[in-house]
């Protein structure tokens, strides 16, 4: 398959399929693998421009092409695809949320992740290993029971288990009473697990590319072009979007979608749309690889730490967002120190493990810890932002919903509560207890 195997805007005749037989034959005979997505010149106009080449942007492009046949689409990113939160998260997926709306939303996402390997023909290494949310107090345990009952009503496999049962699932946890925060029980969610986040990014990019969507990396948006708005240069409410100005020239499009997470408010400002978003880094860290001993994802809301073990044997940790707004992705000693203390509280046995590295990703935090999705006062300018600390697990369903919104020009019911105007109407969505803290 040659690099310029198809003309932009048209469906490729023979998309290269990944298969075991193909891997074996390549392994034996050598030879180049085809490019995962084409490298094509930037056109002057598209039907839809998606800013941000992460899971949300790429999924939106993929579902636009597959579900709605809209393929004259460009995904542009100022860096490489998956360079932001999509490549920096801790790759945990689950659907055991607290509110019925949240459960329905994330369950759809989880089912899309479940069938992703076959849908996208790429091994996303989804490991459905079970997800434990620890409770350290009676109050937390009550909330777990509440969540379990909400989950059961919606057919989600979720139940509260005792410390002894927790010990059976994850033998390395300290369930004794001598801890500062003894484990009182846990919400056990067997369908939760981890996934290879890079493969999800590549899979969506490849799938969208096969259907004619273009990926443009190293293409930075310098301005969003508008007309007719009340603000300067035709920006702002009442206007409509006409395209974007990039470091590679102006590109026109009647629809521009902002999927830029931490940079969301900067991009929206370019269109004259003010977002209730602040940017805070979320740090994560990974240890040296060791023999597999942690069979499930372990989350503690009280200690605000979550940990899973990768297929390579590394422990991946995450914690809370940094305590001040910031566009800087440097690690801090405060984070490492707090993390180590909390992990050792849960698993004293890992005290000799060494951290390999730590990193941070930028989170777009909203006042109610719920996302902002859908249409804005500027016609044609849509947002899928405000995902804060849990955007990755919502990526597939967000893409599906945003694609539906673009294709039908109506807000799908599943994301209606997340519209930007809720901040004017005072209808905030309190998902905090269910989504932002629990991860």
């Amino acid at each position, binding site marked *: 398959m040659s690099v310029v195997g198809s003309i932009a805007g048209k469906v490729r005749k023979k998309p290269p399929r990944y298969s075991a037989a193909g891997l074996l034959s390549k392994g034996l005979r050598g030879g180049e693998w085809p490019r995962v997505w084409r490298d094509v010149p930037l056109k002057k106009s598209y039907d839809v421009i998606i800013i941000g080449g992460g899971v949300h942007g790429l999924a939106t492009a993929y579902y636009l092409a597959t579900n709605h046949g809209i393929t004259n689409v460009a995904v542009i990113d100022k860096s490489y695809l998956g360079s932001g939160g999509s490549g920096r998260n801790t790759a945990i997926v689950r659907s055991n949320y607290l509110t019925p709306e949240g459960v329905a939303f994330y369950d759809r996402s989880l089912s899309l992740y479940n069938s992703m390997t076959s849908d996208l023909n790429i091994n996303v290494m989804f490991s459905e290993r079970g997800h434990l949310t620890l409770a350290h107090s009676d109050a937390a345990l009550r909330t777990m029971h509440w969540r379990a009952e909400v989950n059961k009503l919606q057919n989600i496999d979720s139940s509260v288990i005792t410390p002894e049962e927790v010990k059976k699932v994850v033998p390395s946890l300290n369930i004794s009473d001598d801890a500062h925060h003894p484990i009182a029980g846990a919400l056990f969610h067997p369908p939760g697990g981890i996934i290879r986040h890079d493969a999800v990014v590549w899979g969506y990019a490849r799938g969208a590319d096969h259907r004619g969507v273009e990926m443009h990396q190293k293409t930075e948006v310098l301005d969003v072009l508008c007309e007719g708005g009340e603000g300067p240069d035709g920006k702002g409410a009442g206007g409509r979007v006409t395209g974007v100005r990039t470091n590679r020239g102006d590109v026109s499009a009647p629809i521009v979608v902002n999927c830029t997470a931490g*940079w969301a*408010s*900067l991009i929206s*400002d370019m269109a004259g749309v*003010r*977002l*209730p*978003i*602040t*940017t805070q880094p979320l740090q994560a860290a990974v240890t040296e690889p060791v023999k597999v001993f942690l069979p499930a994802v372990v989350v503690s809301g009280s200690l605000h730490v979550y940990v899973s073990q990768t297929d390579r044997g590394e422990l991946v940790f995450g914690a809370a967002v940094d*305590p*001040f*707004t*910031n*566009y*800087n992705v*440097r690690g*801090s*000693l*405060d984070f490492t120190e707090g993390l180590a203390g909390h992990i050792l509280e849960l698993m004293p046995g890992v005290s000799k493990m060494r951290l390999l590295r730590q990193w941070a990703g930028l989170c777009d935090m909203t*006042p109610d810890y719920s996302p902002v999705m859908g249409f804005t006062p500027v016609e044609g300018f849509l947002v899928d932002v405000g995902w804060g600390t849990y955007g990755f697990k919502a990526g597939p369903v967000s893409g599906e919903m945003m694609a539906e919104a673009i294709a039908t020009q109506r807000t799908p019911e599943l994301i209606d509560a997340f519209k930007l105007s809720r*901040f*004017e109407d*005072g209808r905030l969505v309190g998902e905090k207890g269910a989504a932002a803290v629990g991860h």
Partner: protein
Amino acid sequence: MLLVPCPNCGPRNASDLRHVGESVSRPDPNSASPAQWRQYLYIRDNVADWNTETWYCVRGCRRFFKLERNTATNEFRNPPMPGNKLGGKA
């Protein structure tokens, strides 16, 4: 690790302080329209550049003050200014 120049306690680790947030103008509650009030409550510039913010020295002198910080590089500039817990620009 971020050393915040507290006007009373001197440079302190950011964990000794609370980041109140970007300083915003607080409209008069008696005359503000709902839109102005929500703007004050929720909307922030969130620039990746120099910004004026309110900090509270929660583990030190328990004073509010304002500082200019570059949110992209985490540098501080100019001496602290008096602040209040509403974070207002006034």
